[in-house]
């Protein structure tokens, strides 16, 4: 499966009450196009989506916070796995879309190919779901996403995917509007 298809599948399983934090580049664009709006679309701050998700989860304990990030973003902020494991907010869920490349900047290889996600996440003390594999059937992918969404505590779902991002236009919202929309949604 391609990364954008995982986000499309996820969109069909959401209640609409969740807050999504998405990593810069293609993933934010895909979340903008395929999921309910508005969400927290990061445009920069590569490496920080998990940290931002943690902050939102602490400030909005009544909400489910879903952080969706690429492998390049994960590797740039690996230390944040230790932080979330320590803080353990039960309303934070992380979805790693690992396409093995920096797709946004032209598909240069990342170093994620050597990672064993289960061992990595277990090592960080983080509850996790068996990674989605490239050739998993759609039904099994949906099941894993549902399991992840239903998890009663902090949970990480890694998804190994193929890279073929669709061409999507830039997010039309100015970042200031993105922040304002979050403020207004808190009523």
């Amino acid at each position, binding site marked *: 499966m391609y990364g954008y298809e995982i986000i499309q599948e996820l969109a069909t399983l959401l209640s609409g009450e969740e807050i999504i934090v998405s990593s810069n580049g293609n993933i934010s664009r895909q979340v903008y196009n395929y999921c309910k709006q508005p969400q*927290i679309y990061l445009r920069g701050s590569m490496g920080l*989506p998990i*940290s*931002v998700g943690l902050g939102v989860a*602490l400030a909005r304990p009544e909400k489910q916070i879903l952080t969706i990030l690429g492998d390049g973003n994960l590797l740039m902020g690996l230390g944040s796995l230790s932080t979330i494991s320590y803080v353990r907010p039960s309303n934070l869920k992380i979805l790693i879309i690992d396409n093995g490349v920096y797709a946004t900047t032209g598909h240069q290889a990342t170093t994620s190919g050597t990672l064993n996600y289960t061992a990595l996440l277990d090592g960080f003390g983080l509850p996790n779901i068996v990674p989605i594999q490239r050739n998993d059937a759609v039904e099994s992918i949906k099941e894993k996403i549902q399991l992840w969404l239903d998890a009663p505590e902090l949970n990480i779902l890694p998804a190994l995917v193929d890279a073929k991002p669709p061409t999507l236009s830039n997010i039309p919202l100015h970042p200031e509007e993105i922040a304002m929309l979050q403020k207004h949604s808190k009523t």
Partner: protein
Amino acid sequence: MINPSEFLTFLRAKGFSFATGVPCSYFSRMIDKFEMHQESITYIPATREDEAVGIASGVTFGGARAFVIMQNSGYATIGDALTSLAQLYRLPMLLIISWRGLEPDRDFPEHSLMGKVTEATLSSYQVPYWELEIEDWQRTIEVALTKMEETSRPVALLVKQGVL
């Protein structure tokens, strides 16, 4: 020295319910006091200072207020977190930065250059800053927070040795 407990109580009264950052020995008395204030201020230890700015940004997206503690060596690592996140999305937060590399740190060459360029880097990143001094510290913080709310952006306090 400023009483660290009074300092935290003051910040709490100004609306800060979260704090994050990476320690500096200049802040050890204050960090010790976080335990005492944990009911009212949640402290999240970060692994890097840019991560701390990310956490504070998330807290602010969620409608609460966070302050961030770091050395100026840590300030040297947060350029992108400021420019492409906290400043870009207009997320107000208070950065409390220790000013290492001045006279008392003459035996710590690792801080020397950063000590010299701290003010210039704050200015070049367009972060308004004030030196926190023992005298009138509440007033200084009030002025800084007024600017923070007015601009809806991060502002900084520089803290020399022996102040906190």
